[in-house]
């Protein structure tokens, strides 16, 4: 036996028998495909990615300087409030950023309401906050109506239609205690929040679509798993075939 001449030494990379050599070859091929498919693709995603802002971020960039300096026109305040709502509507926002954006939104709305409507609006926000603190269930009809009423009062001021998804967020994000002033802390936090939540690493690999999925998501969540099953199947078939050829029985 070949291996006996080798004093019973065995190494994956230095096979001493034909079977071991064939096995090594198929294993190396499969592991190479496996490695490239998993890590190669993720590396490609990393290499090709570039920071891509959402349209909301571009709009924010155009108005932020005026808003921060207190010289914003009505349209600028509307854009700023709309963008703030675009961020506040995302699921997981850092509490510090949420407070800053709530401040920005409340303050912008108060400014848009002006001296005439402002006090009335603030009163309604206060009433809504009291109601909200007292309810047991957010499906409470009185609460739902109050929420809609406040939203329909505020939405036109912010330039939002009733059919805009952000309109449903207004009532729950307003804070009566933050309506008078845009604090220094908020001014400092808001740019960070906007860039963190509105700029995303994207590339042609993420922009393409396949079966409704973004390409990279389909590749990782669906295709890779199919590939793993396929590689395992191939290995078994090849091994059975090889064993049959060489007359090996389990």
């Amino acid at each position, binding site marked *: 036996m070949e291996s006996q001449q080798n004093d*019973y*030494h*065995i*190494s*994956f990379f230095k096979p001493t*028998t034909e*079977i071991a050599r064939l096995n090594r070859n*198929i*294993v190396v091929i*499969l*592991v190479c495909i*496996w490695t490239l498919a*998993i890590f190669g693709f*993720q590396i490609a*995603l*990393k290499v090709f990615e570039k920071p891509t802002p959402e349209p*909301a971020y571009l709009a924010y960039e155009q108005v932020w300087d005026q808003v921060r300096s207190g010289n914003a026109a009505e349209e600028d305040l509307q854009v700023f409030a709309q963008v703030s*709502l*675009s961020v*506040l*509507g*995302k*699921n*997981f926002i850092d509490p510090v950023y949420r407070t800053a954006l709530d401040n920005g939104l409340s303050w912008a709305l108060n400014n848009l309401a002006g001296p005439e409507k402002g006090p009335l609006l603030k009163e309604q926000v206060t009433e809504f906050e009291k109601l909200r603190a007292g309810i047991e269930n*957010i*499906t409470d009809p009185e609460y739902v109506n109050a929420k809609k009423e406040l939203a329909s009062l505020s939405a036109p001021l912010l330039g939002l239609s009733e*059919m805009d*998804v952000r309109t*449903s*967020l207004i009532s*729950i994000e307003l804070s009566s205690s933050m309506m008078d002033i845009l604090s220094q802390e908020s001014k400092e936090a808001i740019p960070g929040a906007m860039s963190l*939540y509105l700029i*995303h*690493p*994207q590339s042609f690999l*993420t922009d393409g679509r*396949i*079966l*409704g*999925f*973004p390409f990279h*998501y*389909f590749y*990782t*969540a*669906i295709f*890779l*798993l*199919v590939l*793993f*099953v396929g590689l*395992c199947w191939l*290995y*078994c078939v090849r*091994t*059975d075939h090889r*064993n049959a050829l060489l007359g*090996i*029985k*389990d």
Partner: protein
Amino acid sequence: MKKIFLPLLFVLLPSVLSAATGATELEGSFKLGPSIILITILCLFVLVGIFFRAKDTTDFYAAGRGISRVGSGMAIASNWMSAASFLGMAALMYGTGYHGLSYVVGWTGGYVLLLVLMASQIRKYGKYTAADFIGDRYYSQSLRAVGAIIAILISISYCVGQFGGIGLMFKWVMGIPYGWSVVIGGTVVLAYTLISGMLGVTKNMQIQYVIIIISFLIPLFILTFKFDYFWLLPQIGYGAVVSDIVTGIPLSETQQLVNSLGHEFAMVPAPEYVMPWDPATGQTFYQWIAISFSLMVGTAGLPHVIQRFYVVPKASDARWSVVWGLFFICILYWSAPVYAAFGKVLSANPEVGRLAKDAIVVYTAQLGNVHPLIVGLLAAGGVSAAFSTVSGLLVAGASAFAHDLYVKTINPDASPKKQLMFARMGTILMAAIVTAIALAKLALIAQLVAVAFSLAGCTIFPLFLLGIWWSGSNRQGATAGLIAGGLVSLIALTYFIAGKTGTTLPAHDFISYWLGAWYFGIIGAPLAIITHIIVARLTPETPIEIRKFLIEKVHAQ
């Protein structure tokens, strides 16, 4: 069996249906319908165990020998699909989007390594436990004992996540605080293990797989149908949901569909959910790679996974059972992201508040207005997934305690009665330790389970990989590799626990990032392998009997 189940069904069905309407709140009070479903399923498992009980010890150890490759694959899948798969993966994807897919890839890709590098060779080696292999291959009783201790630690770490899942589901079903849920759930699973742990395990695993997968899939068909996506194959149909999350869902396109809290099925654009390692998720490229790598090498080093290959009749069965097992596992893993994506949209309104991520599978079904009984079945499926894994892990841990530690290294003359007593004591002790750790709620379920994978990747995986494929691997190399892998594990876990207790250690941020508790395997496994090789080359070679055995038995055919 019909004699038992049909009357049971007639007695329970009316009360189940009448209780169904009371279970629409996300959290809240005791839910009768889901409770009855849960209890019925647990009773079913025990009864199946009794009906298909092993007649003797040989039957028990060779449980898989009488079943087909497909059946064996189902048993592998059931054994594998824990609370981490059933609840944890969707939780991670819900919280971190694309980052969560590193767990999906890690927990499936590892099977390719397991198959091509180990499955049939382990079967040919012919030992019953991981510690047995280590003790024999490295001709060392000390290493056998260390292997057994590591197997116990891995089982404990793995079980903590499962107990967390059981606690969450019991909390949801019974409407009691998490702490009590863990204690009650832990007690139930311990009783279940002691009663059924030695019964018809493999048959039970096949039935558990069917229940787990059916309970997981039914709500997906309903959700995709209800919200007007391609429902015939939800695993593909949800692609449009993912794209909708990127672009946002305008109110005008929701067709007045609302969640159970009255919010429209609409949301602002949230590309951070889909884009890889988006800064908004707080996760990085390194973490993605590190997690998937650690989980993959961990998969190929987990004692209770490796052990499954000892009980198939032939090496080719071991190979094919991996293929079928992986396919059955993938059915769940293709599906889990669907819950996360729907959960993302259905809880998009900030008013829904911060949901417990680990229960997002159940919350998504509830928010999607799926019938409460089906949600109850889903929760019962989650508990079943945890139970099927925990009972196996507790038995495996207890075996390591009683067989590998006590009998093989301390008292070889122990009577069978004494061995059994030690196995039971080991089971109870492990359950108590796991309950205590689970109460601390250290992290998400999947993350806690990932710790076990990194631990296995740093310790057991190198021993098996080199032990099988390189005759130059010797006792000294194995010891050195274990020390290296163990040290990395110790450092990572020390920093993790210190962080949880508010203690800051030197270079805390640096170590916590590069040696994260759920992915330290990326550093530990290669380091252990390299150390093992270097030391083995500098020390006396492996005895010829072992080299001969490797050539003639493990690799000759």
